[in-house]
């Protein structure tokens, strides 16, 4: 392991890769800060650029963007009470009241230190857990992988889109359908191409990500008439107050960080759970841990109330890399985007990545840590300047997002058809978003589609067409039972729920 860490450090600390981490963190912070645009959009916009680099550098850039976007999301939560990402909603509960009390700088510093500490602790967990799990997962067979992929999709549908299980499952199927377009990998038989040569290679992953995230998010902002810069105009973005944290506050954070890190990491490893659930659970857990007088401060600017979700969401981000790097199965939409990018580089993540491409495996882990350091020493002092991006009017912001999306696809294929296809998918995705159809399950399914089919093919061929492979091995049986449990729980929940009419006017 020490050797691996040294390889990773050597790769991650090269001048080019250090620059990539810095650029990634910086760009991620800016994009993540804009309400409505999260890490997935940030990574999606970066993918075409990463294809110009070697895989390790490309992944390091994306890891930097990921952490930067999460940090940027916290910034907009604290400053304007408009979380850039769902994972930072809990941050706004105490961060925004602190900002209203004139302690915006302090709130940002607490968020940054907590993120750093949470990220550090979880990076250590990742260092220990990833290689061990890689070794265990070498014993996994095709039926287990097939089961794990269904588990991942079901869990994401169940947990990432609260109350929309059926909608999320429909999006999963849509993602798998889109993935099935093009030539069959084994027989080269064209499927769903309708004699169109442009579709024979299938639909590009970058195209789907750009269309369903960057472009459709931009169109959603327009159609809903939202203006992210409006809230920013109500506060001073230049005078955020001191970023110094006193002894008493440090003491309070010291108690919160370890427990929130452990909770965040464990939740992050679980498929589908991710940063949002981790941050809410950590907030709730912290509220139960503190003394009654401190409990009263929750929601009014509590240090622990801010530190807990921030620690947990960063720990969950590191945790979500465990299934991606060790099993090759992403547990969240963001890691699904990263898997798609990895596959684009011709790298298949999974237990063998640890052995075949140790430089990539370890450099990504090490660069995550370097990313945290960059965020702390570079982004935190620059926040008063970076925060001004919140004041950029949508009249300039939206065309820029659309421009980068279209250009990204154009540079990859030099083909009008791909641009038109992207616009078509983006328009459909925008309509679906208006009615709360979640997009992360679609992306996860699109990325996993090919792998799922491959593993189902192998399983069915080995078992001579019998579906008994789903319960023949104890491990597969456990996975299948977990899936059934999740589905039953979701069905029970939807029947139990009392009707609650939610009207969205805007």
């Amino acid at each position: 392991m020490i050797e691996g860490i040294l390889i990773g450090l050597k790769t991650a600390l090269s001048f080019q890769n250090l620059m990539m981490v810095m650029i990634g963190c910086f760009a991620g912070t800016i994009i993540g800060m804009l309400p409505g645009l999260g890490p997935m959009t940030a990574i999606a916009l970066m993918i075409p650029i990463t294809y110009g680099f070697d895989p390790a550098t490309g992944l390091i850039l994306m890891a930097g963007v990921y952490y930067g976007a999460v940090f940027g999301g916290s910034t907009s939560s604290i400053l304007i009470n408009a979380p850039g990402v769902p994972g930072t909603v809990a941050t706004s509960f105490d961060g925004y009241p602190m900002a209203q009390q004139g302690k915006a700088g302090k709130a940002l510093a607490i968020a940054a230190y907590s993120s750093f500490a949470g990220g550090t602790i979880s990076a250590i967990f990742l260092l220990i857990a990833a290689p061990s799990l890689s070794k265990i997962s070498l014993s996994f067979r095709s039926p287990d992988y097939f089961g794990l992929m269904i588990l991942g999709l079901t869990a994401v549908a169940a947990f990432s889109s609260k109350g929309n299980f059926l909608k999320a499952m429909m999006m999963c199927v849509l993602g798998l359908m889109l993935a099935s377009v093009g030539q069959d990998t084994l027989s080269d038989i064209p499927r769903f191409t309708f004699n169109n040569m442009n579709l024979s290679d299938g639909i590009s992953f970058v195209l789907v990500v750009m269309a369903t995230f960057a472009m459709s998010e931009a169109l959603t902002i327009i159609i809903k008439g939202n203006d992210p810069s409006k809230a920013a105009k109500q506060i001073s973005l230049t005078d955020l107050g001191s970023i110094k944290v006193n002894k008493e506050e440090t003491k309070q954070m010291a108690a919160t960080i370890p427990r929130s890190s452990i909770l965040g990491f464990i939740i992050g490893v679980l498929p589908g759970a991710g940063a949002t659930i981790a941050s809410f659970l950590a907030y709730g857990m912290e509220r139960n841990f503190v003394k009654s007088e401190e409990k009263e401060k929750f929601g009014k600017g509590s240090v622990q109330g801010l530190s807990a979700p921030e620690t947990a969401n960063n720990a969950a981000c590191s945790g979500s890399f465990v299934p991606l790097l060790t099993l090759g199965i992403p547990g969240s939409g963001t890691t699904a985007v990263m898997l798609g990018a990895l596959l684009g580089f011709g790298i298949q993540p999974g237990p063998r990545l640890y052995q075949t491409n140790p430089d990539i495996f370890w450099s990504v882990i090490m660069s995550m840590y370097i990313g945290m350091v960059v965020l702390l020493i570079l982004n935190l002092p620059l926040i008063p300047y970076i925060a001004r991006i919140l004041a950029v009017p949508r009249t300039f912001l939206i065309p820029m997002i659309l421009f980068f999306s279209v250009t990204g696809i154009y540079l990859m294929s030099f083909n009008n058809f791909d641009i038109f296809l992207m616009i078509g998918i983006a328009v459909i995705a925008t309509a679906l978003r208006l009615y709360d159809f979640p997009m992360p399950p679609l992306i996860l399914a699109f990325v996993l589609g090919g792998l799922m089919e491959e593993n189902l093919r192998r399983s069915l061929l080995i078992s001579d067409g019998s579906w008994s492979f789903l319960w023949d091995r104890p491990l597969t049986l456990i996975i299948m039972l977990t899936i059934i449990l999740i589905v039953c729980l979701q069905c029970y929940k939807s029947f139990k729920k009392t009707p609650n009419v939610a009207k969205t006017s805007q």
Partner: protein
Amino acid sequence: MKINSVKLISLLFFILSAFYLYTAHQIQVFAFDENAPFNAKTFPIYLGYAGMFFSGLKIALPDQNPIEVDPTYLEFKKTILLVFTMIVYGATILKVGFFLSTSLFLVFSYYFLGERRWKYIIIFSFPFVAIFMYLLHGVLAVYLRDPLLKYIGIMG
């Protein structure tokens, strides 16, 4: 059973899944693969059924959290104009070239979204695209097709 927009979308998805299933059955597989446990149409067939199953459930089951979007609050005009601009941009980017089509796309997009400060519109279109092109083409050596600039003699 009340038909709301979500149920209508689910119905459309049901029809799409049925069409997908029909098309999956039409996939021509090799003769020796016809009775194999798994061939090119096996997975799509299961997907078609899965799509019909989930959308069918969504249509049949009562909606616990109905979402109604009031169309009067939606900015259709701006969105349609923007989508139309993107389509024109996509159609002209190869023929007219990257520089002019991108710059004009940005100018029209800013304008359609309500921007009237021409100084900023110009700065963030033509010079911005020129710098972007220089970075891509000149620094990163990413090929950018531009017949217009080639004709003028600016690009090789």
